[in-house]
């Protein structure tokens, strides 16, 4: 496992698009610039869309890693004030 300190975690298994994106976005807005959020997302639509949209919001994706058959772990560094 990579050496990244995670400040907050959010489990979005079973949460559909675009709600999962909105929840991730709201969580990141509560955090400070440079802090790190770990998100658990469903395979499929969620993993295709959420990292992309979060990246567009100006945050940085540090890690995308498959957990098992059904879920992915995404680690995000909170970017500039959006």
């Amino acid at each position, binding site marked *: 496992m990579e050496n990244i300190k995670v400040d907050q975690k959010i489990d979005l298994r079973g949460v559909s698009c675009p709600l999962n994106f909105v929840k991730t976005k709201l969580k990141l807005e509560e955090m400070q610039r440079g802090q790190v959020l770990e998100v658990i997302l469903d395979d499929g639509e969620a993993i*295709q869309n959420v990292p992309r*949209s979060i990246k567009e919001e100006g945050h940085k994706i540090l890690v995308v890693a498959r957990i098992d058959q059904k879920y992915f772990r995404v680690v995000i560094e909170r970017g500039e004030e959006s």
Partner: protein
Amino acid sequence: MNKKQKIDLDQLKKGGMVKLNEKDMFSVWVRTVCCNMDAKKLQKVADLAEKYGRGYVLFTTRQLPIIPFVHIDDVTTVKEELEKVHLMLDRCGARVRNTDVCYDANICSYAVTNPISLGEKIDQFWKNDPGGRKIKTSIAGCSKQCTSPRVLSDIGFVGGEKGYDVYLGGRLGLKPNIGSMVAESISEEECVSLLKNYVALIREEKWKGKRGADVVNALGVPAVKEILNKNLGEKHSEKAFLCDTRQDNKIEDGKIILRIRATCGEVTSDQLRKIADIAENYGKGFVHFVLRGGPEIPGVDKSKIEEIRKKLAEVNLEILDQGVDNLQTCFGAYCTNGIMDTQALLKKLEKIIKKLGINDLDIKISASGCPNSCGISHLSDIGFLGVIYPIVNKKTCTGCEVCVKACKVDAISIQNKLAVIDYNKCVWCMDCINACPFDAIEKGKKGYSVLVGGRGGYSPNDQRGGETKLGKVIKEFVSEDEALEIAEEILKNGKYKS
């Protein structure tokens, strides 16, 4: 309270709002009933576009109006304002879509069945739909198929003298397909039963994320036919929901459907108010939304055309009675998937067509910003698709698989922890480039693919004739200038008559 928390999460979940390529900007999709909208509602849409958007509305290929560039903070307000005049947001994503129809048989002289009547029964059937699958349906009242049901719908209904012929598996997008006939000359009630059978089939777990075309390809036409034609005689007791613009009487002699040009489907708020006003004073009080974007006002008296022409000219609008058919596009430059600025292309092409003095309304031209073909490029005599060449950056790729999932044509695999693109399979969309969380798939060359010979419906009377067909790519990765040159050449020598 955090301002952002005012966002209506439930509404976002249901759809009706699609993100555009500017930060925090959304498009608001307004639902139409039987693809019509009355003057009062149109005025409201015009006002909202002015107040919360950028002062214009798009008449789209989904046969409904879209207000582009509404800020995320205003989305809830716009939705509430729409509700004041009983307008709702449309559905999108993995959901059942609005049934697209052409005209009431009392309005259109070509209609041999009444699409509105079937549309009402289908809408009633969907009323309690749980969603979860993308299902598109559309209906045409005659073989001209103005709504292109064979391509634009999972289940398409085409009216004939003895009832509806039903086609399964139409779609555009990256894997375009013409639907296969699964039933012939069946009644409205039987159409609803067939749809019910399809819904039961597609809701099986193994078809999750699949479309009618996938079902046909996997099972074959005979097997699908058997499944869909079971117990068609079943009665549907539900009271049919009524279309509020339904016509009870045959339209009077001398009344026509007035077509208005709206290049790229763009209509300003001022123009829309004028169109609404004309519909109220000269037509049946409503406007019809068609595939190719030109607003249509049914029930206009022929003798009033010149008078209306003058009124339209006041807001720089013209009647669609010369030149070629309305030049239509998707979101083009505004879309998160848009590769090329189709609006710019078509506006330049419009000038070329005027210069050439071409006068044949059967010529259909459209453009899509990417290969998804939302601008129905495959169904036009000349079609354009924005295309881009993806290149994997081996230094930044982490082999995370997101691109493999994003690719709809299975052109990417992970080899030694690196994404590898099979360029023989690639269709040049931007899905992998957009999906990569690390920007490790870079943009190579981009341009237009040019297609010719597409046709949405059967057209026995024009020179091209024949059945529905998909346009064929004749050139790839040409610049805007080259695309315009090719189009001009085709228009001059008539080579679009493939």
